[in-house]
């Protein structure tokens, strides 16, 4: 059986021998290189841009300014609020201002110094609190009221009454720091325009279809003449799921010059492109009844969005809508503001919008359970929401393997024997979570399939799958080979995948919201099953012979198509479809930490992570997703933070200053796969790429509490913050001793 096997990645050899081509590996004849001039101010009006000095500079071929590309764009059709290059205003340090194309990169970079920009510096707002208090300083004109990208305030049931009658109530403020994706491949794009007006863009994007739409709109080129190709992609994590300025710049410069143009972002520029984790300040209330059941959850959330919306409208919803499992909530309210500020735009980083509230909630749940003397694993088990149920906010949960996840990490970590008993400075903590397997509707409303797959059979026995899906390293191309092998009974090594090329492949909406395995998998299975029927009817001694006989019977080439579209899902209220998914994944983690009480320096020794992915179509790939997620979550707890000075300048936009974990900083990771066999998923599968990140942060925070009795409520858990809490703890204990 191909499904469920540890089939090696279909692109494994091309990546192992260095032959696989990423976007920056593309070099076209006569290709130019372009660089982008960026704003030194957090907020300024542009009085004038003078590019005349670049004209005639040896090697410079063309320049580009914002007025040449004035159309606004954005991934969400309701919040088109950015331009490829600044028009009238810059909104953060690093915002794009002008672009130069030259014969090589260094020449383009030198020419940038010749551009004169006359700025009128404006007051900037750098925190969401300031953004609320100073509506007169307008960061982005798209905001209807002040600096609010989106405000959502929804209440399910009578929260206040439920809190009033609860046995244990915790109200605390939790602060989540901003962090960024850091794919090791910087963003890169290459464009070429032919004499017939056909534009081709190769880009390191995880959303070729949306990029095609936005390029067409902004450049005024018909969509049928825009081709977007995603070569091999060197990591994304949500950081390449917006249309980016470089894509518009290379396309426009290719049109202006008639020559191919490339832009490769420097590492510093990747930090400005950002779209990373939103900083959130959350006032969380968790109330439990006498039996430890969750009677009410209330969360007031202030979200720091940066200068542009990105997916921010959705972020304001996800911050609330995705919290309502794996536990049953009696009542629930969330009130979230996503604010514009003069900083690089935040967006969807792995676990979009829901990692932050999950941290606050899971720590508050621990605190509330402690008040009632209930074990942290037990309180989570007791509140399990069940299978095939509705959440408090009207989301339909299908399969749910959370109890098994909890049981596995409880046993593997030796929880019963070790929690609370590891001695000073060592502890265990637990947390759970839920995540979506795709969203119920595309970012632009339409009735067409969210994912389409075309499969062609050659008389040689070669199978070719055409899929618009983006393999961003998660391995969807490998899954497609496995699905073809499973349905057609062919060798998975005899399958070619043609992927993510808008001229050649049917539309898939992109690699975001953990939708790919579920939606592309269903579409591929349908396409293959249509062909399998024909092959079975044809008979034959070998696969190739079956293909030949079936083609003879058909009298035409053999091809099958499949499509996937979600049913109508979600609660019957405004925003009720946001966060509605055809299936939810579930995760439980136990983290073990050690804390040096003298210095505050702490370390995660190990994280046990169990994840319900429905069905592991390829256990090796699923484990890779779990381990990569846990690593990235632990990193946010340990060390990662986007820090700005009082003028909005990002500190150290490099990998020396913005530290990500090396092999020496990463805890031991133990991953366990749980299979709940979802009725809607392909072969029972659900997502695995984002859900397993969530519990890492609260599990670590809860483990630090077990180790030394402090509650850390602010990320990252810097040693100096731990030390401060330890000193407060000691002062409190000394006070209590004196009083007694």
């Amino acid at each position, binding site marked *: 059986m191909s499904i469920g096997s540890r089939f090696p990645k279909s692109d494994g050899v091309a*990546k192992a021998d260095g*032959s696989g081509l990423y976007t920056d590996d593309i070099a076209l004849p006569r290709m130019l290189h372009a660089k982008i001039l960026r704003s030194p101010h957090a907020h300024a009006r542009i009085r004038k841009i003078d590019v005349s000095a670049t004209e005639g500079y040896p090697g410079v071929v063309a320049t580009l300014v914002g007025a040449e590309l004035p159309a606004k764009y954005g991934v969400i059709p309701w919040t088109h609020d950015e331009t490829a290059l600044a028009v009238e205003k810059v909104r953060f340090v690093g915002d794009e201002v002008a672009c130069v194309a030259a014969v*090589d990169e260094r020449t383009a970079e030198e020419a940038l110094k010749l551009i004169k920009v006359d700025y009128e510096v404006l007051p900037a707002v750098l925190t969401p609190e300031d953004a609320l208090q100073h509506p007169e300083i307008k960061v982005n004109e798209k905001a209807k009221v002040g600096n609010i990208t989106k405000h959502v305030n929804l209440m399910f*049931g009578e929260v206040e009454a439920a809190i009033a009658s609860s046995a244990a109530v915790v109200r605390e403020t939790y602060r989540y720091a901003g962090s960024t994706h850091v794919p090791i491949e910087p963003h890169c794009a290459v464009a070429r325009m032919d004499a017939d007006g056909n534009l081709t863009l190769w880009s390191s994007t995880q959303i070729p279809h949306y990029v095609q739409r936005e390029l067409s709109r902004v450049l005024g080129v018909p969509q049928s003449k825009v081709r977007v190709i995603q070569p091999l992609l060197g990591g994304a*994590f949500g950081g390449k799921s917006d249309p980016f300025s470089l894509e518009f710049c290379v396309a426009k410069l290719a049109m202006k010059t008639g020559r191919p143009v490339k832009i490769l972002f*420097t590492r510093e520029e990747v930090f400005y492109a950002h779209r990373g984790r939103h900083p959130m300040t959350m006032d969380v209330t968790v109330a439990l009844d006498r039996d430890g059941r969750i009677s009410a959850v209330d969360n007031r959330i202030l979200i720091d969005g940066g200068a542009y919306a990105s997916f921010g409208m959705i972020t304001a919803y996800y911050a609330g809508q995705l919290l309502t499992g794996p536990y049953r909530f009696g009542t629930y309210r969330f009130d979230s503001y996503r604010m514009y500020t003069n900083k690089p735009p935040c967006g969807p980083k792995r676990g979009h919008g829901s990692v932050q509230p999950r941290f606050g909630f899971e720590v508050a749940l621990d605190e509330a359970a402690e008040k009632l003397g209930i074990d942290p694993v037990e309180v989570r088990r007791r509140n399990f929401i069940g299978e095939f149920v509705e959440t408090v906010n009207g989301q339909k949960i299908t399969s749910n393997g959370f109890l098994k996840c909890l049981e596995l990490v409880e046993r593997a970590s030796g929880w019963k024997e070790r929690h609370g008993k590891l001695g000073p400075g060592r502890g265990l903590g637990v947390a759970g979570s839920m995540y979506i397997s795709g969203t119920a509707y595309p970012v632009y409303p339409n009735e067409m399939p969210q994912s389409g797959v075309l499969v062609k059979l050659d008389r040689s026995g070669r199978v070719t799958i055409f899929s618009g899906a983006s393999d961003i*390293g998660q391995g969807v191309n490998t899954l497609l080979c496995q699905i073809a092998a499973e349905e057609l009974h062919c060798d998975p090594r005899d399958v070619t995948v043609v992927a993510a090329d808008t001229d050649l492949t049917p539309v898939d909406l992109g690699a975001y919201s953990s939708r790919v395995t579920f939606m592309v998998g269903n579409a591929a299975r349908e396409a293959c099953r249509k062909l399998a029927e024909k092959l079975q009817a044809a008979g034959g001694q070998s696969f190739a012979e079956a293909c030949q006989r079936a083609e003879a019977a058909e009298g035409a080439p053999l091809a099958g198509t499949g499509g996937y579209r979600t049913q109508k899902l979600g609660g019957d209220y405004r925003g009720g479809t946001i966060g509605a998914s055809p299936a939810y994944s579930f995760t439980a983690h136990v983290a073990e930490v050690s804390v040096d009480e003298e210095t505050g320096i702490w370390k995660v020794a190990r994280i046990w992570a169990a994840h319900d992915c429905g069905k592991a179509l390829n256990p090796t790939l699923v484990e890779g997703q779990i381990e990569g997620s846990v690593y990235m979550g632990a990193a946010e707890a340990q060390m990662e933070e986007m820090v700005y000075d009082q003028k909005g300048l990002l500190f150290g936009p490099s990998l020396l200053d913005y530290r990500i974990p090396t092999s020496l900083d990463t805890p031991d990771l133990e991953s366990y*796969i*749980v299979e709940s066999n979802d009725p809607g998923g392909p072969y029972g599968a659900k997502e695995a790429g984002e859900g397993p990140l969530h519990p890492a942060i609260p599990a670590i925070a809860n483990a630090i509490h077990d180790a030394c009795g402090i509650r850390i409520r602010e990320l990252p858990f810097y040693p100096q913050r731990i030390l401060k809490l330890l000193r407060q703890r000691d002062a409190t204990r000394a006070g209590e001793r004196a009083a007694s």
Partner: protein
Amino acid sequence: MQKSGLIHLWINGEDHALAVPAQRTLLEALRYDLGLTGSKQGCDKGDCGACTVLAAPRGSTARGEAILACITLAIDAQDLAITTIEGLAGPSGLDPVQRAFADCGALQCGFCQPGMMLSARALLDRTPLPTLPQIQEALSGNLCRCTGYTKIYEAVQVAAGLRAPSQRAPVQSERAAASDSKAQTVTEIVP
């Protein structure tokens, strides 16, 4: 537009003469002048390790140590014998490190992988049977953002013949009883 001078580089057992400006890095020469695009640029500052290549004194039979091509000038690499990822596989096919990385799922996006595998090769050349801490130490200059490193360690151990690839089986969850959870009446509080 800068003046170029002629240099000689010894890459994967071949001599290359090329004209480059003085500030051309070894990484740029490999990627853009010689078409050896398997060496990757992740930061161009020596922080990420994606550009790692192996370097030994010219004439040496060993492949040598891992160096960072993005902070080595092409001019300064003339006395070295360089091995890039394109030179790691031999006539009999992939190097055991490459094979193990592919078999163990040690790669996801694959971008850090050429550098990672060359660091692993350098380790195994000097320490054929490394301990886990030795592997972690040897790879600590190569950042990977996808894997959490776990399967990379596994691949290095597999390449060294220390273990077989992981085979932990998934666990089935039992069907749970339906709970009494249901959607609550919703109130939208519009500001």
